[in-house]
């Protein structure tokens, strides 16, 4: 019988009817709930959390239990079934097989555990993990690389290494665009804007001036485009997911320790760091100066920034030699890029018999000159292989896999034979590391294999034309002559 409403009383407002949640979404929600609650949940609790009627949930549970995705053997509780555990085990198998494919076979026999840089001990960010779930998407990916500059052989090798990644992972990458900012912060901002406008899914960035890029990278992140910083960039201010690098301070520390020990803690030093605007150069110099400060017998004659240019290194040293000031007992360089200029200045001044010890490697020519002219030399190569690694990390991010906040790319300590010191033992002697058969402008730690030759490098990936590298051809062969 229909109840009569009292006159003058407004009908009670009914709560809005909730749209029923589809069963398949409840099933998926239940699996996620089990993941969140460490594999166990009460049936009543699950129904409440999922907003599902008990009867519907029970029917769903029976179907999932039949497939052994859940275990209902304890009354009133839902646990993980064996098929769910098997899914996790399959994932681990997949990751393990991908991981083993990535591991390159060893080319050289090293004196210590290769790559065992123990960076986890020194750098806390190596053990921090970035959550990447919000960037997850289905391959293939469109990637962009905003490169600070292409003004020396090392940077050419970095680009080659990143391009190699685009080939190696061509099944996951639909296009790879590279733009060089030529040491111009505004140009780099425009490059990133253009890459974003072209619809890239993720960015690799080697930053020229970090401060100028904070806003545009923030925008990129808000648009769901992750950034992996490689080589250059102030990780503390730049919005980024991961920083792929090599411990610059350690490079400065090891090379400075070797020089100080080689000189038995006495003498005059000329310091030739790289580019003043580049954080790696500043960090290496800091590391070196901290070491030199511990030796009161060492005197620093001058600190001259070279921009990692061999011409600049040569000019500075030539001027010092011509000035006939205090003799230089050792030359600290953070890279062989400028060290070759210094060595050539000594040779041009007719000092081939008594060249002071030098530091700085990377460049094939730096090793060739040191060995040929009997110069004691120590180097820790700054590996351009970080280009390849940064693309790998970006792919991981886009696949929704967590990545370390900082990725250290392993490197090697290289010393001319017989010139090891008390605390600096080489992984390789220079004569084992040098490539006499390859060009002077070869950068040795490129990770591109023993046959890599920057002059004949050809690469084909989606986004380039005529198999040409994006590295500026004008940047090649800058070490000829002199």
């Amino acid at each position, binding site marked *: 019988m229909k109840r009569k409403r009292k006159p003058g009383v407004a009908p009670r407002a009914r709560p809005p009817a909730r749209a029923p949640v*589809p*069963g*398949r979404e*409840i*099933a*998926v929600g239940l*699996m*996620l709930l*089990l*993941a*969140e*609650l*460490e*594999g*166990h949940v*009460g049936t009543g609790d699950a129904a409440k959390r999922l907003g599902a009627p008990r*009867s519907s949930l029970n*029917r769903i549970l029976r*179907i999932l239990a*039949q*497939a052994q995705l859940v275990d209902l053997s*304890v009354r009133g*509780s839902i*646990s*993980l079934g*064996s*098929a*769910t*555990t*098997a*899914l*996790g085990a*399959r*994932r*681990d198998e997949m990751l393990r097989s991908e*991981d083993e494919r990535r*591991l390159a076979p*060893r080319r050289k026999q090293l004196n210590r*555990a*290769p790559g*065992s*840089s*123990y*960076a*986890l*001990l020194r750098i806390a960010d*190596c*053990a*921090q*993990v970035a959550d990447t779930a919000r960037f*997850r998407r*289905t*391959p293939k990916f469109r990637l962009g690389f905003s490169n600070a500059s292409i003004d020396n052989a090392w940077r050419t090798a970095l680009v080659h290494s990143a391009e190699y990644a685009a080939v190696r992972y061509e*099944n*996951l990458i639909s296009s790879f665009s590279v733009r060089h900012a030529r040491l111009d912060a505004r140009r780099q901002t425009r490059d990133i804007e253009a890459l974003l406008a072209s619809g890239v899914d993720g960015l690799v960035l080697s930053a020229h001036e970090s401060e100028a890029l904070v806003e545009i990278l923030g925008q990129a992140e808000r648009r769901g485009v992750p950034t992996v910083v490689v080589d250059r960039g102030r990780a503390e201010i730049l919005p980024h997911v991961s920083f792929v690098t090599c411990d610059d301070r350690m490079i400065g520390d090891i090379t400075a320790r070797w020089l100080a020990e080689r000189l038995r803690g006495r003498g005059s030093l000329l310091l030739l760091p790289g580019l003043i605007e580049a954080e790696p150069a500043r960090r290496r110099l800091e590391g070196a100066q901290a070491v030199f400060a511990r030796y009161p017998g060492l005197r620093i004659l001058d600190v001259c920034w070279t921009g990692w240019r061999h011409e600049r290194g040569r000019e500075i040293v030539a001027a010092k030699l011509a000035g006939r000031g205090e003799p230089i007992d050792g030359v600290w360089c953070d890279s062989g890029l400028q060290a070759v200029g210094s060595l050539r200045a000594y040779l041009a001044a007719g000092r081939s018999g008594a060249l002071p010890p030098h530091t700085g490697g990377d460049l094939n020519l730096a090793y060739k000159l040191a060995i040929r002219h009997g110069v004691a030399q120590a180097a820790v190569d700054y590996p351009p292989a970080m280009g390849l690694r940064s693309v790998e990390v970006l792919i991981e991010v886009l*696949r*929704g*896999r*967590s990545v*370390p906040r900082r990725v250290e790319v392993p490197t090697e300590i290289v010393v001319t034979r017989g010139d090891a010191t008390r605390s600096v033992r080489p992984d390789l002697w220079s004569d084992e590391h040098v490539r006499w058969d390859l060009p002077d402008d070869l950068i040795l730690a490129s990770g591109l294999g023993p046959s890599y030759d920057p002059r004949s490098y050809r690469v084909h990936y989606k986004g380039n034309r005529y198999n040409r590298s994006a590295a500026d051809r004008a940047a090649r062969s800058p070490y000829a002559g002199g």
Partner: protein
Amino acid sequence: MPADETAGVAAVAKLLARVAETPGRTVAALAAELGLRRSTAFAVAAILDASGLLERDAGRRLHPGPITARLRLARYGFGAMADKAETLMPVLRDDTDASASLFVSDTERTFLVVRRRAVWDGGGESVSRRIEAPVGRSPAGFAARLSLVLRPKASEAEARSAAACMGQVAAALAKTLEGKAAPTVRRASRSSARDAVR
């Protein structure tokens, strides 16, 4: 629950169970194999992909997604550790040049849950030195520990450095266990302990 909804749930169950058996199949192939309507299979696969239970590779083949790693470790009460374990085990291996493993165990059994082998490690019976570090105990009563198998003839200094690195990773993994609630129901069932190693 309407019949088409039951079909949707069945599709979820069948797809997940089949990917657990044979990953790397396309949705179309699985639909044909499992007798699912293509439209249902594609719709369900999209939901599973978006949730992270499955993921699709460039060839649109289905594989277990990131959530499944968490589900696997959830069995032992270490689900929250899954992401970090997946990420940091290769880092530990690369940083120490040692084979890195994560074990969980209770009083009777030990399970190997993650192993990342060093380049030199051919997988045979190793005579190399093994060092271990505890990670923590889960509310479900399992203990997790890290293990490193050092390269042959590793020096004492290498072993010390590797142990210290392992300590850093163990601390990072242990952080995920902070503030964990007591177990809600019970421990992992014995019958499903298929990955027990010793």
